[in-house]
């Protein structure tokens, strides 16, 4: 299966007082057609900036200092005009559609402009197609909704409209950045189900970004866990959630209360708080909070290593960046 999107060694930096602040560091990922990949991390982990780097929407004064983004085998470099593919081949929905929809333009116009610009449809054709799209995302009265402004719709309805716009040109890749965070839990379930159906029908690749392990865990085939700008663990969902290899992933999973099973008296918690922006000078960014950290962790940043497993398919797909991996005596000696 050829990958729809390949990101290699992506680094995004912002100017800082001294030198630069690398907020995304050496991120590599690939997503195949129809595959759903989840990017999990806390605020400031660089997950949204990774998405924006793919879309070539890094806010000033930040810039991509290293790495490549290839779409269908072609590099999305400085030479390809983003207006040719942005929205049409790679679409994005954000947490709050109030900020991604134009508040002064009617819903109908916002969908038809996509179809007319990217697809070259005539006005009447575009209108008919827009109605179909709105109906397919579960908007009850598409004709009337098209004449309304974003502000009069509920959060769930706005997110449906954003999704209708995003899929209007059959994108090969859909990036969904916290698409359900602002929604009520029953509406979140509706939007996730819809996202699942729409992307399955179009065989779109999906990059779902969320801080909520439950959301990415139930929706995605594969997970990438980010911490302080780096991918610290990646692998098939069942392997990452069922057998987390990085101490950060383990702690994250342990700190979430569940609706089922034994109730602990206390939640496992991670001491300290995630670093702001880029990482410190040397070593593993998680070391200051890590219960297993040793001297080497404060000296050198660990590389991503494959976790050998007979169950993971393909066999090399579960990786984590931790010095303790493969060292059976790590805990005793510490």
């Amino acid at each position: 299966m050829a990958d729809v999107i390949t990101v290699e060694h992506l680094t995004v930096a912002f100017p800082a007082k001294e030198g630069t602040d690398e907020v995304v560091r050496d991120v590599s990922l690939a997503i195949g057609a129809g595959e759903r990949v989840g990017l999990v991390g806390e605020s400031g982990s660089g997950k949204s900036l990774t998405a924006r780097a793919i879309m070539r929407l890094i806010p000033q004064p930040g810039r991509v200092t290293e790495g490549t983004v290839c779409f269908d085998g072609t590099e999305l470099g400085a030479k390809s005009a983003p207006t040719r593919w942005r929205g049409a081949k790679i679409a994005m929905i954000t947490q709050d559609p109030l900020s991604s929809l134009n508040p002064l333009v009617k819903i109908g116009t916002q969908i038809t402009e996509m179809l007319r610009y990217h697809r070259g449809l005539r006005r009447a054709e575009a209108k008919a197609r827009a109605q179909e799209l709105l109906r397919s995302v579960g908007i009850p009265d598409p004709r009337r909704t098209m004449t309304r402004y974003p502000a009069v719709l509920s959060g769930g309805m706005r997110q449906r409209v954003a999704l209708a716009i995003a899929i209007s040109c059959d994108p090969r890749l859909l990036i969904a950045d916290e698409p359900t965070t602002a929604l009520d839990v029953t509406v979140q379930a509706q939007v996730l189900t819809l996202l699942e159906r729409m992307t399955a029908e179009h065989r779109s690749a999906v990059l779902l970004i969320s801080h909520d392990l439950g959301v990415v865990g139930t929706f995605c085939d594969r997970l990438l866990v980010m911490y302080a700008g780096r991918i610290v663990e990646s692998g098939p969902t069942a392997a990452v959630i069922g057998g987390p290899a990085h101490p950060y992933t383990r702690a994250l999973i342990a700190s979430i209360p569940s609706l089922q099973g034994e109730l602990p008296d206390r939640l496992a918690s991670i001491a300290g708080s995630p670093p702001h922006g880029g990482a410190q000078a040397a070593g593993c960014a998680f070391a200051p909070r890590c219960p297993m950290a040793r001297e080497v962790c404060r000296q050198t940043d660990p590389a991503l290593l494959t976790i050998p497993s007979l169950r993971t398919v393909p066999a090399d797909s579960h990786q984590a960046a931790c010095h303790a991996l493969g060292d059976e005596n790590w805990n005793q000696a510490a």
Partner: protein
Amino acid sequence: MTDPAHLHGATTERQATAQPAVDVRDLRVHFTVHRGLVGSQVVKAVDGVSFTIAAGETLGLAGESGSGKSTVARTLVRINRPTGGSVLLDGAETARLSGQQLRAYRRRMQMVYQDPYDSLDPKMTIKDAIGEGLSVRGVPRARRTSEVEELLARVNLPVALAGRYPGQLSGGQRQRVSIARALAVSPEVIVCDEAVAALDVSIRAQVLNLLKDIQADAGVSYLFISHDLSTLRFMADRIAIMYVGRLVEHGTSEQVFGQPAHPYTQALMAAVPDIVNLGRALPAPLPGEPPNPASPPPGCAFHPRCPLAIDVCRTVAPPLVRKATGQLAACHVVPDAPGVTP
């Protein structure tokens, strides 16, 4: 106030009596919304809600947007005035307090808000923000610094933060300051309105553990409001579920999470993506959205979304009664406990 047990003392007496610390009876909060020049409309944000919270207990209140759960919180701390019903604190009616008495009441009932960025004055140092509460409690100036340091230690913050401003702290640290500030007046009840919703996952667990520790030490009661059911399951002894201004289910945590009675509660739980259930297909979601409280559906407000709705649900609002599973629920379809007269 030489007794350092100001955080402990008052509660032991209360525990001796069986009286609940907070007793809310048939609380109503109606707002009049003016439309145009002559039109007006009554929005029943909270419409006949009753619950009690015992000393040292946590009541978890869940609901979606527009359910009125934040209005309940704001009415308890008297940001909003109740338009009907009563709120008893240690048996004394408080719904109509004003002036000096209201100020005294607010010392006993504190609130921690969702957003620690908005709820702390950016121009006040941490020491001053917490010290304000101490001065309200009448702690002499000379002792304030040491008490501020004690409070910071209680919420696991380094004393060195006392001179900083909120803008210099992280979200988790700010929320700890908000908690310390609430504790400064030695309240009996703390209302936590989505107190951990804005925090990162790894920070959330720290703050939840802290709130539990404080309760174990000081015996405070919590009204813990959250849209996150798994957090409520961890925090609360009893649970109340709100839908468009009313309670639809109310019982112990074991009852409500073990065997949810109301179809809304069931749908709410099914909709939570839980990592324990990996590989499970997403459940068929509940159709529709929570209704606008300004124009709730007639009968049972949940009927347009309910898979069990029958004719009577469309016209008659069901009462909150004991169900066969032990908890209270407001549903015509779910079987009542034996002995409940219709």
